[in-house]
C-alpha cells in the first residue's frame, strides 16, 4: 500500500512540474527562447512570496494575489528590456544571456537572504489527507496542487486557441515576420508571453515552497525538472506537458521508495529512457 500511496502522491506532485514546464514551453513555443534562468525565476518567486508572507502576515495562498501579478510585470519588463535583444538567428545570445542572468539571480538571492533553507508554512493543510480506505489516503495538498495544474493548463489552452492574443502567439511562433505584416507587435507579444510564463511558474513556485524547502541554489534543479517534463511530454503540447510532469513525479516517487537517495536520479533516468525510446516525447506536436 505504501507503494500505491507513493505513486499517487508522485503523480499529483507532477502537476507542479507540469506548471514549471508549461512556462518553459510557452516561451519556447512563442519565440524559440529557452530560458536557462527559468529555475532561478521560480526560486525568486518563492522568495517574493516569503517576503509578502512575512511582512503582511498573509497565508502563502493569499500571497499569490501579489506574487503572480508582480512576476507577470517582471517577466514583461525582462523580455522588453533584455531578452528581446537576444532574439535572432543565432542560438548563443539567448542561451548565454539567460545563463548569465541565472548566475546573477542566484547570487543576488544569496546576498539578500543568505544560503539558509526557507519554507512557507500553511498550518496543518499540507499534511491533512482524505482517507479513501484504511491504508489508502490522498493528501488534500497534493490534490489541490494537481487540480490547480489542470485548471491552469486548461486556461492556457483556452488562451492559446480561443483568444486574439493566443492567435498572435501562434502566428509569431509560425513566422514572426509575416505576423508583423498583419499588425502583430512582436516585441509586445513576446513580452506578454514571458509575463504569462512567469505568472504561471510563480503559482507553482508558491506551492512547491510550501511542500519542500528552497534556497538560492535551488533554481537549476527546478529548471531541470521543467525541462524533463517538457521533453518527456513532447514539445509544444500543453496536455503532453502535464503527462510529462506526472511521469516525472511518479518516477521520482518510485525512486524515493526504493532508496531515499534515488529520488531525483530516478526522474533523470526516466527522462533519459524516454529520450532514447521516443526522442520526440510521448505526445509531440511541434516539429522543432
Amino acid at each position, binding site marked *: 500500500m505504501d507503494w500505491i500511496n507513493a505513486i499517487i502522491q508522485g503523480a499529483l506532485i507532477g502537476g507542479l512540474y507540469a506548471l514549471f514546464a508549461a512556462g518553459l514551453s510557452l516561451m519556447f513555443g512563442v519565440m524559440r527562447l529557452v530560458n*536557462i534562468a527559468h529555475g532561478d525565476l521560480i526560486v525568486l518567486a518563492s522568495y517574493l512570496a516569503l517576503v509578502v508572507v512575512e511582512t503582511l502576515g498573509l497565508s502563502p495562498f493569499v500571497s499569490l494575489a501579489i506574487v503572480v501579478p508582480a512576476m507577470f510585470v517582471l517577466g514583461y519588463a525582462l523580455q522588453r528590456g533584455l531578452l528581446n535583444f537576444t532574439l535572432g538567428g543565432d542560438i548563443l545570445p539567448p542561451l548565454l544571456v539567460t545563463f548569465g542572468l541565472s548566475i546573477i539571480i542566484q547570487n543576488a538571492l544569496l546576498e539578500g537572504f543568505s544560503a539558509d533553507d526557507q519554507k512557507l508554512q500553511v498550518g496543518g493543510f499540507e499534511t491533512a489527507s482524505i482517507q479513501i480506505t484504511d491504508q489508502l489516503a490522498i493528501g488534500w495538498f497534493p490534490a489541490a496542487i494537481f487540480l490547480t495544474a489542470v485548471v491552469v493548463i486548461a486556461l492556457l489552452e483556452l488562451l492559446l486557441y480561443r483568444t486574439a492574443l493566443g492567435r498572435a502567439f501562434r502566428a509569431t511562433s509560425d513566422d514572426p515576420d509575416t505576423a508583423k505584416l498583419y499588425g502583430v507587435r512582436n516585441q509586445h507579444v513576446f513580452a506578454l508571453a514571458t509575463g504569462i510564463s512567469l505568472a504561471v511558474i510563480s503559482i507553482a513556485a508558491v506551492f512547491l515552497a510550501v511542500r519542500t524547502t528552497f534556497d538560492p541554489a535551488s533554481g537549476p534543479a527546478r529548471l531541470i525538472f521543467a525541462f524533463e517534463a517538457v521533453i518527456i511530454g513532447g514539445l509544444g503540447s500543453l496536455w503532453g506537458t502535464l503527462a510529462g510532469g506526472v511521469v516525472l513525479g511518479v518516477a521520482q516517487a518510485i525512486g524515493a521508495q526504493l532508496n531515499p537517495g534515488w529520488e531525483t536520479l530516478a526522474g533523470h533516468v526516466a527522462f533519459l529512457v524516454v529520450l532514447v525510446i521516443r526522442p520526440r516525447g510521448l505526445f509531440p506536436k511541434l516539429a522543432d
Partner: protein
Amino acid sequence: MTAAAQIPAYRIERSTRASRLALVGFVVAVVALLSLPLWDGEDDLGSIVEICYMLALAQCWNLLAGYAGLVSVGQQAFVGIGGYALFAFTILLGVPPIPAVVLAGIAAAVLAFPTALIVFRLRGAYFAIGTWVVAEVFRGVMGQIRALGTGTGMSLPVAISRAVAESRAGREIVLYYTGLAIGIGTVLMVFFWLRSRQGLALTAIRDSETAAGSVGVNNERTKLAVYLIAALATGMIGALIYLEKLRISPDAAFDVIDWTADVIFIVVIGGIGSIEGPFLGALVFFGLRYLLADYGAWYMILLGATAVVIMLRAPRGLWGLLADRFDIQLFPVHRRVRLR
C-alpha cells in the same frame, strides 16, 4: 585568352607578421614558465596551475561551443569523471598517479560516447540542458558508489600523494609541470586541430551547418569527434585538479558553477570562436577575482553582468573587438588569399 590568364597571381597566407611575433612571444612565455621554479621559487606555482587548468577547460568549451555549435552546460560531468577515475585507478587498481591522469582522460572519453548518442538527439538550447541532466546523473551515480565514498566523498590516501613525490615541495613541482603540460598541450591540440582538415570542416560548420553539409562535411561525425576529444582533455584536467585538491566529493566534482559557469564566462568575455579569446578571458577572470576577492556573491554578479553585456554588445568578446580594430590574429588558423 586562356583561362590561366584570367586568374591573377595569388598566394595563400597562413601566418602573418603578428602571428610570427606571437610565436616568438609564445616560445618566450613557455621557456619562462618552464624555468619558473628556478628563479621565482615555489610560491606562485599553485596559482599558475589553477590558471592553466581554467584556461585548458575554457579552450575545450570554446572548441565545443564556439566552433562545433555544441553549447554544453554539462562539461562538469567530465571534470567529475576525470577526478573520480583518478581516485578509482590509483586507490582501487594501484596505477601510479601520473599515468592515472592520462587513463582518467580516456575513461572520460569512453563515457562521453554513449552520452553523445543520447544528448545529440537534442538541438541547440535543449542540448545544453540535456548535457546538464547527464552531468547530474553522473553526480547521482557517483554518490551511490561505496568504494568511492558515496555522497560525502573521500580523500586521496597519503601513500598515493607520496607516490607523486616524497616531499611536499617535490609534489608541487611535479604537479606544476603536469599542469603546464596539460595547459599548453590543450592549447596546441586545439590549434593543430583547427589547422587540420577536421578544423576546416569545423569552421565550415560554425559558419553554416547547411552549407558545410552540402560541400561534403560529415557534420555529425565532425561534431562527435570534437565532443570526444573535448571530453578526453576535460577528463585529464579533472584528474589533475583532484590530484592537486586531494579530496573529492560528488557535489564539488560535478559543480556546474566552478567547472562550467566560470569557464563559460571566461570564453564569452574573452571572445568565443577564437583561440586568443580564452587567454584574454582568463586574464579578466583572474584579475577581477584578485580585485574582488572580499566581495563574495558580488563578484559572481559582476562577472555574470559583464558576460551578459558582452554577449549583447560584442558577441565575439574582447578579442573580437581587438581583432576587428587592428586586424590581427595571433594563432594562425585561418587561410587568406593575397593577390599580387
